[in-house]
């Protein structure tokens, strides 16, 4: 799964992200650099360096520097149009699929740049999975085939597929509910189940990172809470980055929260700090609902 040739044998000790306890840990300048440099390149750690993204001439993401620690859940919050979805889509290089769109800067996974000259885009997307806002199981495929689709795209041996599908469905908390109807169409499930199916599908290919773009906005509150529970369980296995409009969700689910505004990274800090005592006035204004 690792598209890069960088030595990944060094693990960050304790995988703790030193992004500041109670001491100010801000990114007040438009550069948005986290003051504490990240731990040495480690497994499943993603670092953005000077990332900028454009739609034609319009710059949607402005020189962002940020890292996502391995066993953490990082939430990206901000008002509509602040560039958070765009930024996240640069991590798995989906942004460039849009005609006229391009990205500059570096995105490092395990220390290797995903935008490097010889990097295979397809391999990047196998290492960095994505779950979308609206559940999108493939309509012509059964539940089993949906989860297996990622494996089949990458040419996995048939014998392995069964086991990995089962494992993925268990990890997504869906196995018990669908084990007796794996052959039924994926669309026959409820919204929350469909989204968990999509999560299973993404997990089946064994990614290192899971990007979630507002995964619960189309779901009812109970389904939302189940998925949040799931995120808590999954974070030991994959680095999770979640874009969300819902600040309470970010507060519940994330270890680290990053606030973006107008394409810039305004502040990134442990979640409890962002929601009890943020450093930047703009963050304060946003989380208390004074604008946005």
């Amino acid at each position: 799964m690792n598209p890069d040739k960088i030595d990944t044998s060094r693990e960050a000790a304790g995988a703790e992200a030193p992004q500041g306890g109670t001491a100010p840990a801000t990114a007040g300048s438009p550069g948005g650099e986290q003051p504490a440099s990240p731990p040495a390149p480690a497994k499943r750690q993603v670092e953005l360096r000077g990332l900028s993204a454009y739609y034609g001439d319009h710059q949607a993401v402005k020189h962002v520097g940020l890292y996502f620690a391995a066993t953490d859940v990082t939430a990206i919050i901000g008002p509509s149009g602040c560039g958070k979805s765009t930024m996240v889509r640069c991590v798995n290089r989906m942004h460039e699929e849009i005609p006229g769109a391009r990205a500059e800067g570096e995105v490092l996974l395990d220390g290797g740049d995903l935008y490097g000259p010889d990097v295979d885009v397809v391999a990047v997307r196998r290492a960095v999975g994505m779950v979308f806002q609206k559940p999108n199981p493939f309509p012509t495929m059964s539940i089993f085939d949906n989860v297996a689709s990622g494996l089949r795209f990458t040419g996995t041996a048939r014998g392995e597929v069964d086991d990995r599908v089962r494992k993925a469905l268990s990890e997504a908390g869906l196995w018990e509910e669908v084990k007796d109807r794996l052959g039924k169409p994926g669309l026959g499930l409820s919204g929350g189940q469909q989204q968990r199916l999509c999560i299973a599908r993404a997990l089946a290919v064994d990614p290192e990172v899971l990007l979630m773009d507002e995964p619960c906005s189309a779901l009812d509150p109970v389904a939302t809470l189940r998925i949040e529970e799931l995120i808590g369980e999954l974070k030991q296995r994959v680095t999770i980055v979640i874009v969300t409009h819902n600040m309470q969700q970010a507060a519940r689910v994330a270890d680290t929260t990053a606030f973006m505004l107008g394409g810039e990274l305004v502040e990134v800090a442990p979640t409890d700090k962002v929601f009890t005592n943020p450093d930047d006035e703009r963050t304060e204004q946003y989380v208390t609902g004074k604008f946005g």
Partner: protein
Amino acid sequence: METRVQYQEELEQLEASALGGLDLVSAALSRTLEAIEHQDVELAQIVVADDDRIDGRYLEVHQALITLLATQSPVATDLRLISALLHVLKNVERMGDQCVNICKLIPLSGNEPPSDEEMVKLILAMGAQTKTLISQAKRAFADRDVELARDLVRQDDVVDDLNRDCFRLALEIGDDADRREWAMTMLLAARAIERIGDNSVDIGEQVSFVVTGLFQEFEDASHPSA
């Protein structure tokens, strides 16, 4: 368009209500001091009865704050403010209770005029200084003035010194069997006033919490100020 205007206004109102409780306390303290000075039992009873108003204020604002927590998901400064106001309310209620404690002592000291002018003077001085503390605490909170809040410690030291003076005086008077009981009750009263002073300092600490997000004890029995 401004968002959450109603919520902001409600929060401001609740803050005003909570701080208004300090006005009630100040008035109660004034009357208590007067009752001590003139041995006015009736006035003391009025203070005791009026404490219901302070308790009522506490319950009303407390409930409203809890509701706000449940319905508005306050975060950051708003959250710290609500937490601080809950503390302030508790202190207000305690202050009121201290006044009641003092007033309950007054009939016990008999219907005779006070036995020692100096003691009474000390108590009244403590009371006046404490009233200053209360209004300073209120101003510091309303203005979010951390420096003014810290100054409360110094002001409170005055009250503490006066309290010690009362104690010494009581020891002297204590030799006199006739006046001993009176001196003890006056000491209790002094103690209650000193507690009110400490409550004001606590309010000052809340100011610091709201503004900086960090909770620090200005001065405590275990951490005497520098």
